[in-house]
């Protein structure tokens, strides 16, 4: 661990800024992810039609769409480095942990921007009844944090394998399954008027566990020169 606390914080910030800048130059990843999210949303909505009265199904569909959007886009930050052969240079200037944390923060921003478009469109297309915004936003926030933490770590592994994109969905799914279960049940409770504290606690605990595991495991990600 060459970097001290403050300088690694600066490194994380620098990585985040670099990610945002290189994404903004082409906006290729964001455009592809948004298009994919809207496509999966439209195909779901088109296939089932409006269903204002089945909020249990709506909660499940919302998270299936969000999970697909995450699976389609979150490997991008690491795969881009491998494909552009820039990973080695990046590793020269920053520790594995700060690279991964920077990319995690970027992925969170990325997820939030996808959700900003997808969730309102979902509510409109499906004719969903008005949600309770406080609980819904809390579940979306904690769910995204857990999704981002799990997916970023798996993406860092996947970027070093053959057939990167194809494997990502299958390999990260088991890690993301507990999030799906808790988030769907929380979103359902939010619509039916039940308390969501149990689900929020579960999501928060899982996000913290994943983040803690990440901090321990990031060091082992790139060792072979």
């Amino acid at each position, binding site marked *: 661990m060459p970097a001290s606390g403050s300088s690694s914080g600066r490194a994380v910030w620098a990585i985040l800024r670099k990610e945002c800048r290189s994404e903004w130059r082409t906006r290729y990843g964001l455009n592809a992810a948004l298009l994919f999210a809207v496509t999966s949303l439209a195909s779901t909505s088109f296939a089932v039609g409006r269903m204002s009265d089945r909020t249990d199904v709506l909660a499940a569909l919302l998270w299936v769409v969000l999970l697909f959007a995450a699976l389609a886009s979150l490997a991008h930050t690491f795969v881009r480095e491998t494909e552009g052969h820039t990973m080695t240079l990046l590793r020269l200037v920053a520790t594995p942990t700060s690279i991964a944390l920077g990319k995690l923060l970027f992925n969170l921003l990325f997820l939030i921007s996808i959700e900003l478009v997808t969730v309102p469109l979902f509510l409109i297309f499906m004719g969903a009844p008005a949600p309770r915004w406080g609980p819904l936003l809390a579940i979306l926030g904690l769910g995204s944090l857990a999704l981002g933490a*799990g997916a970023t*770590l*798996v993406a860092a*592994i*996947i970027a*070093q*394998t*053959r*057939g990167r994109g194809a*494997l990502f969905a*299958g*390999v990260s*799914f*088991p*890690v993301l*399954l*507990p999030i799906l*279960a808790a988030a769907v*049940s929380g979103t359902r409770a939010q619509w039916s008027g039940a308390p969501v504290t*149990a689900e929020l606690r*579960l999501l928060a*605990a*899982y996000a913290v*566990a*994943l983040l*803690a*595991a990440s901090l*321990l*495991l990031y060091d*082992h*990600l790139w*060792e*072979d020169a």
Partner: protein
Amino acid sequence: MIARGLLLLWIAGWIVAAFLWAPLVPVLGETTRVLYFHIPAAWVTVLALGWSMVHSLLYLKRRNLEHDHQAAAAAEIGLLFCVVATVSGALWAKAMWGAYWNWDPRETSIFFLLLIYAAYLALRSAIDQPERRARLAAVYSGIAFVSVPFLIFVVPRIYFSLHPDPLINPRGKVDMDPRIRVVFFALLVGFTMLFFWVQSLRVRVARVEHRRQGSVA
């Protein structure tokens, strides 16, 4: 050689006893006997996953490929037993609950283990270089190590389960006939020994493969 023969006799003998000697539980009827195969298989599934994860973490600590052989072998055998546990459980569920599958929390957990095993092995198959494969598979194992307790222990507590729990539920334990218990624990031991025997074979094969790759390169 002798140990292998004894293991064969032990398992075969207790399977015969399961059909001829042990009584049936009133409500479960003929389906009682799935107990002797399903639960030991499920136990080996969990044991193999634990074995694989411990060796993965040891690999990250010590960087000895021997640990990677152990982890990979346990994952392969664990997947096999996981399939046995899932299929025997689904057959039992069809007989008792009327459907092969209905996302009971136990079914969710075993399906989750199946996914983890499959993902771990798929990940391994996508990396050629042995050290890199060992390291990345071990990191993935570490992530799975965090997520397994959440599904295995948290979800069944949240959702209602119909699954009979004779090992955890004390009421079920009292109801258990001593003969059932003897056959059950004997087969539990038998399946565990079977796991360690196949595991040692698989590890030896992995060692030979690794040495041969080294001599070719």
